[in-house]
């Protein structure tokens, strides 16, 4: 039976409840947002006692479905002030499913100076003292936890950034090799866990197994089709396994959509030094511990992740992904993959979001704190986050705060969150998603880059975004990776898997309805938190200054949004 684990950090209690009937068909983002909506006062202080951190696995977790073990983390965001969900690959969702836990809810507020870990195993849930881990970087924390609890445990962790309540702090978990760098990075959710004095969750699934699908034969038949489509689609069979997400650099650069020089343009002269081929060629030529194709979660057949080595063949960071390459690289005019990888590693170790930090770094460059393209000074500045210095804290507070402190007014954020790596004047559908998603500027909430539209024109972009937001939500509620969307275009196949898993008929239309209902709940939460239509805007300069690469301004109006 699926369970909810509730941990109260005020009285240090942990209890296990049955999953309420109204939630049995929900997982991932749908479940985190439903619980946040029903249990968190929208006007509460995000770092106060009334906020809750909700973790959830998807409905397909733990069942050897490729790319279906994403972990969702939700709360009221201290970065945006609205409802938030961020998700990541890794092993945590897989192990939660094996433990029979659909969701973990962390409530209350940390008292005093003591830090804790939550241990989940076949015996139940308990809080463990963890002062010995406080202040350590993520990688050292993970090593100590493996020494204490065994090498095979799953770990959900926050870094020093979360402990210090930085608004860019994320929540990470480990990959199948135990590397703790699979981040639910966005929205400052690590700071919310930090406010509760919970450093992490240890998932020991030894002696446990996932409850099998109710209709096993039907499930197996659907699963065979699902994997076959993934193996036969060029993107998922050939491109992602070889080049991974860095392949996107060439695409966005080609259409003037690669954020460059603090989003002032959309093409980067150094793009060929940081694109998918460059990453692939560097990894293969250096050899050693490098790997061009790596699974970030159990059972993934796409294997789009990578292990990026330094010149000596030793790991510099894993993974090195498109969004980080663009926002730390082109957006800061840095064309040195090793420097980007080093900054990625530092952000992982401090437990902060590379997108937020990359954007804040570009703002520091715009302000003259360091020159654009100066990789050495960029690494040194990011190291200030780890030192908890004043400038480090400015960066760690995210792009919007950095802009305010440093006197820069062209700041690419929506609802306080830095844009992802798609320039919205050249990829207007993403611009609509940035504006209208309850999550703030977020590419995973409705990515239109595969829509087939002419991205620089406004025609069809609002519809594409809204359809994309619903489609992405279906994936998020099931715990599926968005990469699957390139292959599995028939949602009836996914509905078949869900039906067999639950033992009741779930149609494609039902999945879409769950997604729409949950999106509406998120918007309702934000309205109650004080958001209005005025918050559904890009920063002013995107409407007034053309992107030199495409010659376009962002011209989607309030009327365009309302007409759909």
């Amino acid at each position, binding site marked *: 039976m699926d369970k909810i684990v509730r941990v109260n950090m005020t009285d240090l209690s942990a209890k296990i409840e049955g999953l309420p009937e109204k939630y049995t068909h929900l997982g991932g983002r749908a479940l985190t947002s439903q619980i946040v909506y029903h249990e968190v006062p929208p006007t509460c202080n995000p770092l106060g006692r009334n906020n809750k951190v909700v973790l959830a696995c998807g409905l397909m977790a733990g069942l050897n479905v490729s790319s279906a073990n994403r972990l969702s983390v939700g709360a009221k965001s201290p970065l945006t002030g609205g409802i938030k969900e961020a998700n990541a690959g890794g092993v945590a969702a897989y192990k939660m499913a094996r433990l029979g836990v659909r969701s973990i809810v962390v409530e209350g507020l940390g008292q005093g100076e003591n830090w804790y870990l939550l241990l989940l195993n076949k015996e139940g849930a308990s809080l463990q003292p963890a002062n010995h881990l406080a202040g350590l970087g993520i990688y050292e924390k993970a090593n100590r936890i493996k020494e204490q609890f065994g090498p095979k445990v799953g770990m959900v962790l926050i870094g020093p950034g979360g402990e210090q309540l930085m608004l860019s702090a994320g929540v990470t978990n480990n990959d199948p090799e135990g590397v703790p760098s699979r981040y639910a990075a966005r929205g400052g959710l690590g700071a919310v866990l930090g406010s509760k004095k919970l450093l992490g969750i240890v998932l020991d699934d030894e002696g446990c197994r996932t409850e099998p699908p109710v209709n096993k034969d039907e499930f197996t038949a659907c699963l065979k089709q699902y994997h076959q489509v993934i193996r036969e689609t*060029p*993107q998922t069979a*050939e*491109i*992602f396994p*070889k*080049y*991974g*997400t860095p*392949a*996107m650099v*060439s*695409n*966005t650069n*080609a*259409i*003037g959509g690669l954020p460059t020089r603090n989003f002032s343009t*959309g*093409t980067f002269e150094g793009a060929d030094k940081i694109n998918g081929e460059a990453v692939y060629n560097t990894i293969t030529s250096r050899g050693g511990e490098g790997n061009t194709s790596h699974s970030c979660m159990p059972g993934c057949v796409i294997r*789009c992740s990578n292990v990026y080595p330094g010149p000596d063949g030793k790991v510099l960071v894993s993974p090195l*992904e*498109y*969004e980080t390459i*663009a926002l730390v690289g082109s957006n800061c005019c840095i064309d040195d993959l090793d420097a980007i990888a080093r900054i990625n590693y530092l952000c992982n170790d401090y437990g902060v979001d590379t997108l937020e930090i990359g954007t804040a770094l570009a703002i520091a460059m715009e302000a003259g704190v360091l020159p654009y393209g100066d990789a050495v000074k960029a690494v040194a500045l990011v190291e200030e986050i780890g030192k908890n210095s004043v400038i480090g804290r400015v960066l760690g507070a995210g792009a919007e705060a950095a802009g305010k402190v440093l006197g820069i007014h062209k700041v690419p954020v929506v609802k306080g969150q830095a844009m*992802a*790596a*798609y320039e919205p004047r*050249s990829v207007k559908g993403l611009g609509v998603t940035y504006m209208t998603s309850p999550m703030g500027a977020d*590419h995973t909430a409705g*990515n239109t*880059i*595969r829509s*087939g*539209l*002419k*991205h*620089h024109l406004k025609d069809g972009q609002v519809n594409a975004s809204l359809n994309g937001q619903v489609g992405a939500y279906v994936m998020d509620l099931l715990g599926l990776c*968005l*990469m699957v*969307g*390139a292959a599995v275009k028939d949602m009836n196949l996914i509905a078949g898997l869900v039906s067999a898993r639950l033992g009741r008929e779930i149609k494609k239309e039902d999945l879409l309805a769950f997604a729409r209902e949950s999106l509406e709940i998120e918007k309702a939460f934000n309205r109650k938190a004080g958001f209005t239509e005025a918050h559904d805007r890009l920063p002013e300069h995107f409407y007034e200054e053309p992107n030199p*690469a*495409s010659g376009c301004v962002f011209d989607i109006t309030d009327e365009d949004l309302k007409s759909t």
Partner: protein
Amino acid sequence: MISVKVEVKLPWQLVQAGKVEVPPDSTVEDLLRHSGIDPGEFEHLLLVLNHKAVDLDDKVRDGDHFQVLPLLIGG
């Protein structure tokens, strides 16, 4: 004839880069065929003319820069 700079970067076939000569009023679809690419693969392709995404029936002009890339999503 008009001259168009063509770059094809698809992992499942050889990289092509260079100028091609095609008749005036040629379309993107004509350029694809000229490059040995089946227009039926359109759903897997990002077609870019002068830094803008285009459709199969868009016309090309002398001096244009045409790029063919796989249709992807980032992460």
